[in-house]
């Protein structure tokens, strides 16, 4: 019996969590390798151990509302501002940006290459009867995609399961599924560049103000969540916003391409 108790105690023991924070995060920053590059630099300079839970913006915000994180790093500005207004976040700062792109089969059945703007691109997909794979998971990318369909005056839900395929999964899983089905997919550029299973698909539409993708950082409000490690969360946030942090973000490249553009200042 004594052995059993020792055994269980050992099993349940977790190392003393000195200066550790949990970041509830969007997936693109993890899947693109940004954290693998950034966090060792941060640790060297601040001594902070950062544990990242990468789940997609919608879920990250909900998890943070249950106090299961110290900082939020996501990309849905209005949802972040609401998070702060509702008292869950201390404040919100712009951190960095990149943009969304539309990828799809090389053959380009909807002729996106000839699209005037993103509205036109979406209308072409609908008119050509081509498939479109959506995240369908209330993530930042999904929120952006829905707003674009709305601007194009198309209700894609009406074709759900026919031409509009909602995977209810992360960006990578949606790309795996969508590209496999020869569908068009809206993705952030960082995930696309670092994605290793592009199959027969290529980038078909890009470069428009409407596709701007802003990332924000929000420390969780200690008044709402007393368990928050406020000092460490503040250290993390301020380092990301500092000249050093911003320069580090800008220096990260995959295949010679910069994935995130710092814009805190």
């Amino acid at each position, binding site marked *: 019996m004594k052995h059993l108790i020792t*055994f269980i105690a050992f099993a349940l023991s977790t190392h003393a969590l000195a200066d550790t924070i*949990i970041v509830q995060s969007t997936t693109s920053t993890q*899947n693109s390798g940004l954290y693998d590059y950034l966090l060792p630099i941060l640790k060297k300079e601040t001594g902070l151990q950062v*544990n*990242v*839970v990468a789940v997609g913006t919608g879920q990250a915000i909900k998890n943070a509302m249950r106090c299961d994180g110290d900082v939020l790093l996501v990309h849905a500005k209005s949802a972040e501002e609401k998070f702060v207004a509702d008292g869950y976040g201390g404040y919100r700062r712009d951190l960095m940006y990149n943009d969304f792109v539309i990828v799809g089969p090389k053959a380009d059945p909807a002729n996106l290459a000839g699209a005037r703007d993103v509205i036109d691109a979406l209308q072409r997909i609908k008119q050509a009867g081509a498939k479109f794979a959506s995240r369908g998971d209330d993530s930042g990318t999904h929120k952006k995609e829905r707003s674009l369909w709305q601007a194009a005056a198309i209700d894609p839900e009406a074709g759900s399961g026919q031409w509009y395929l909602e995977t209810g999964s992360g960006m990578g899983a949606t790309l795996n599924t969508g590209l496999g089905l020869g569908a068009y997919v809206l993705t952030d550029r960082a995930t696309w560049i670092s994605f*290793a299973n592009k199959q027969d698909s290529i980038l078909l539409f890009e470069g428009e103000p409407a596709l701007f993708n802003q990332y924000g950082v929000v420390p969780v409000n200690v008044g709402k969540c007393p368990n928050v490690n406020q000092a460490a969360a503040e250290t993390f946030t301020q380092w990301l916003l500092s000249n050093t942090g911003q320069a580090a973000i800008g220096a990260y490249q995959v295949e010679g391409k910069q994935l995130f553009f710092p814009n805190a200042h």
Partner: protein
Amino acid sequence: MDALAEAFRLIFSLDADLFEILLLSIRVSLVALGISAVIGLPLGTYLAITKFPGRKFCTLLLNALMGMPPVVVGLMVYLLLSRSGPLGWMGLLYTPSAMIIAQVVLITPIIAALSNQVIENLYQEYSDTFYSMGVTGRRAILAYLVDARYALTTCILAGFGRAIAEVGAVIIVGGNIDHLTRVMTTAIALETSKGNLALALGLGAVLFVLSLLVNALVIGVREYAAKRQYA
């Protein structure tokens, strides 16, 4: 083919990250298995050798719980351990302990239900003998477990199989945090979502080899012990 090459490269490069992930997988699964066996084996035996009203229902419930989707168990444990949940004050969410708790909930019913079946067969054979010898209660449970130990290894291995292969529950309560709660299955899920399919399959192959080794070891020990006993 790429995947196999990747698996060999992973194993023979003695990649430190791989071993960290592999060790955590083994640690979490074995600890969960130990706790589940301590609960599940006596529970299954008790239900097999004791008559009480509602016993059939309990057995039915155990069998049904074997089919519980891991993601539901993960969600329940998450809500329990969340900072805003009833056990949030313990600070266990996103730790290996949370993963162990979820796996105990998942595999205890498997071990209990399967051992229940094994002991029930034995009961028909032994009940009169044990009764006449005055072996009852806790001593009877122990006697049955010792007697059926070889057959029970299969129940244990089934539990281990579920634990080591499970991803839905541990990714929710563990968070797949690098160097903290990342295990083989969640690493496979992550690499798949990055589109690194060969690496993901390679990790899968490594996990399979581990499972093969554990099963071979347990079955080997069982055969050896059985042979010595009856020699």
